[in-house]
C-alpha cells in the first residue's frame, strides 16, 4: 500500500515537473525554441574591438576559455566551493605605433561559501563567534606580456596568489566581492637587464564579479595595488605599483544560441605596464562572441 502510494506520488511529481516551462528557453511563433539565458563564466570567448591607450587608438583582439563550477565539500557539511577559471587567454593590441601581446595560461578564483560562517575560539568552553566573510583564493599563473615598441623588453608574471575575504557571501558563483593580501613573483626584462620583483603580501588584490540571473549583464573588476621589492636589494625599499581594470558586458543578440555581447572596458596602471613598468590608462569597447556559453 505504502509502495503504491509512493509510486503514485513520484509519478505525479514527475508529471508536474514535466509540465514546468524550461526557464532558459522560449518558443518562436513557428514553434522553434531559442535560449534566453547564458552562462558568462563558461565557453570560448572571442572578442574584437578598439580602444584608446593614452589617446592612441588601436585594434584589440582577445581569446580565452572560461570554465565555472561549484562543488559541495565532502568533509565540511554546509560548505560549497564556487570555482571560476579562465584558461589560455590571449590578448593582442595592434596599431601603427603599438604591437602588444599578452598571454595568460591560467587565472582563477575559488571561494569557499559556508551557510553560516563562524570563528571558533579554542577556549574552555570553546567560543563560537559569527564570521561575516567567505574565504577564497585568487590565482594567476604564467602571464607573459610583450610590447614591440618597448624594444626587446618583456615581462613574465610567474604566479600571483591572493587570499580573499568576501563580505557579500553570495551562495551562487554569479557574485563575488573579494579582497585580500597578495603574494606574487614577476620577471621584468627591460631589454638589457632581467629584474625579479617580489610582492610578499604587501599588495592588496580586489576581485569583483556580478552577473544578472539570465547572464545577459556582466560586470567585472579586478585590480591590485601595493609594494613590490627587488629580492637582490630588499633593503632599498619597495616600489608602489597598481593596476586595475573594469568590464561591463551586455548580450545584444545570439547567433545559433551563442551570445554576442558588447563590452565596454577601462584599465589603468601605475608604474606597472609593460617591460618598462610605465603608467598608462586605456578605455574602449569590443564585440565578444562566447561560444558554448550554455547553462
Amino acid at each position, binding site marked *: 500500500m505504502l509502495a503504491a502510494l509512493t509510486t503514485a506520488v513520484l509519478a505525479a511529481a514527475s508529471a508536474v515537473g514535466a509540465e514546468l516551462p524550461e526557464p532558459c528557453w522560449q518558443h*518562436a511563433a*513557428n514553434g*522553434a525554441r*531559442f*535560449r*534566453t539565458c547564458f552562462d558568462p563564466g563558461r565557453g570560448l570567448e572571442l572578442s574584437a574591438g578598439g580602444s584608446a591607450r593614452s589617446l592612441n587608438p588601436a585594434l584589440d583582439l582577445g581569446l580565452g576559455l572560461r570554465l565555472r563550477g561549484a562543488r559541495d565539500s565532502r568533509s565540511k557539511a554546509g560548505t560549497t566551493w564556487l570555482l571560476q577559471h579562465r584558461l589560455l587567454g590571449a590578448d593582442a593590441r595592434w596599431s601603427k605605433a603599438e604591437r602588444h601581446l599578452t598571454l595568460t595560461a591560467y587565472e582563477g578564483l575559488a571561494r569557499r561559501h559556508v551557510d553560516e560562517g563562524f570563528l571558533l575560539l579554542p577556549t574552555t568552553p570553546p567560543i563560537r563567534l559569527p564570521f561575516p566573510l567567505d574565504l577564497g583564493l585568487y590565482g594567476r599563473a604564467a602571464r607573459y606580456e610583450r610590447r614591440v615598441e618597448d624594444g626587446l623588453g618583456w615581462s613574465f608574471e610567474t604566479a600571483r596568489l591572493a587570499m580573499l575575504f568576501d563580505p557579500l557571501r553570495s551562495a551562487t558563483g554569479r557574485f563575488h566581492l573579494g579582497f585580500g593580501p597578495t603574494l606574487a613573483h614577476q620577471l621584468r626584462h627591460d631589454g638589457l637587464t632581467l629584474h625579479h620583483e617580489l610582492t610578499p603580501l604587501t599588495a592588496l588584490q580586489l576581485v569583483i564579479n556580478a552577473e544578472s540571473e539570465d547572464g545577459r549583464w556582466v560586470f567585472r573588476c579586478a585590480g591590485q595595488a601595493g609594494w613590490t621589492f627587488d629580492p637582490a636589494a630588499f633593503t632599498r625599499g619597495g616600489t608602489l605599483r597598481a593596476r586595475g581594470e573594469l568590464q561591463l558586458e551586455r548580450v545584444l*543578440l*545570439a547567433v*545559433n544560441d551563442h551570445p554576442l555581447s558588447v563590452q565596454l572596458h577601462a584599465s589603468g596602471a601605475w608604474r606597472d605596464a609593460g617591460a618598462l613598468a610605465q603608467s598608462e590608462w586605456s578605455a574602449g569597447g569590443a564585440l565578444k562572441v562566447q561560444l558554448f556559453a550554455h547553462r
Partner: protein
Amino acid sequence: MLPTLLLLTLGQSTEPVDDRLEKARDLVHELANRAARTPSELEVTRAEGDRPHLDYAREVWCVELKKSTAVPSGRYRVQCDDGRQLCFAAPDRVLRDGVETEEELQRTAPCGTLPPSQLEKLSATHRFVEAVAEAPDGWYRDDQGRIIQVNFDLHRRVYFGGAWAPSFRPGAARDLSLGSMDLGRGRADFGIELELANDAGRELHRLHILEGSAFIGSRDTRLMATAIRYDWSSRRLAAPVWITTFVGRPRRLDLDVNLAGWFEAVRFELISDQGFLTLASANASIDLWHSRDLQSYLRVRAGPAGEFDLQTRSVSLRPEAALEADFTLDRDGFHHLTGAVTGEKLFFDQALAGRRKSPERFKARLGYELILLAINDYPLTLVVDGRAQWRDDLPGVTPGWDFGVDAGLRFSFWAPARRSATQVFNRTRG
C-alpha cells in the same frame, strides 16, 4: 459456354450480322485453341504500332514460348498485365535484322522462372505480344534489344580533353590596335569529378581530384592544377542559422541561408616562370539558389587561403571571394552552363622587385558544355569557354586584362546516369 460467348459477341456489336458471326467464330476458336495450348506452342503476336517496353521496376519472368523464325530459341523475357490480360514478351537475345543472335542482352533486370502450370494458366487468359526488354533508369533499349545510355551525369566522371584557346591582351591606354593576339594557343584538360549524395538526397558532397588545365603553344605557358577540392550543398529542414535579439522582448529570427563549405588543398598556378602554390583554402559558401537535386546551383563563397610564393619562398594570407554557377539545363544532362567570378588579394606577402605589395587577382569565366555523342556510352562533349583575367602579381608585367576563348572537345569516362534519371520507354529525342 461457347453459345453464351457467341450471343454476347453478337449482341454487343453494331457491325453487319455476317461480319459479327465471322468475328465471333474466330474469337471462339482462338479461346478454344488457347485453352488447349501448352507454353511451347504459345505464339507471340506482333504488336500494333511501337513495341511496348518491359518495366525495369517490375518482376520479369524468363520463359520458353513457341519457337519462331525471328526467335528460334523461343526464349523470352515476359511481364504480364492482368488488368489488360496481356503479356509482353521480349526476346532474350539481341536481334540483328529482326532475327535473334547469340549476343546476350545487357543491363537487364534479374529474371525469375515461371512454373509451367502458371504459364499454362496465363496462356489461357492472356494474349502474348512482342515487346522490348527492360532497361534501367537513364538507358534506352532499341527494338533490336541493344542498349544505349541516354542520360549522363557529367558531375561524376574522369575526363580529359583539348581545346583551341586563343588569347587577347589589349594594349596600353586601352588602345586595341596596340594589343596582342595569340591565336596559336591550345589547352589540355584533365580532371576527376565525384559526387556523393545521402539517401534522402538532402546533401550532396562534391569532390574534384587532380583537376587541371595547361595552356600551351604560346609565349607564356600557363598551368592551373588542383590536387583536391571539396564542397557540399544541403537542403535543410530547419533554418541553419537563427539570431536571437535581446533588445526588448527576446525574439528569434530564422535565416534560411543555405550555408555550406568549400575547401581546396594544393593548387598550383604557373604563368611563364612565375609559380604560386596555394597550400589550403577554406571558404564558407551560401547557395543563393540550388535545384532540388542540388546539382545545379548559384552560390557565393568567401574565406581565407594560405599561399606559398615560390619566388620569395614565403607564405601569404590570401582572402578570396567568388560568385559561382553550375547549371544542368536539361533533364538528361546534355547541356551545362558554368560560370565563376573570383577575386583574390594577397596579404603579408614579401616584397618582390617589380611587384607592388598586396597584389590582387580577378578572374571571370563563362562556359558551356554539350554532349555531342557517346562512344561506348562514354560521352564526348563540346566545350566552349570565355575567360577574362586581371592581375598585378606578376613581377615586371604591367597589370592589365587578358581575355581568352576556348573551344574544344572533352571525353569523359564513367559518367553514369543521373540520380534523377527515370526509365525511358519511348525515345522521342532527336
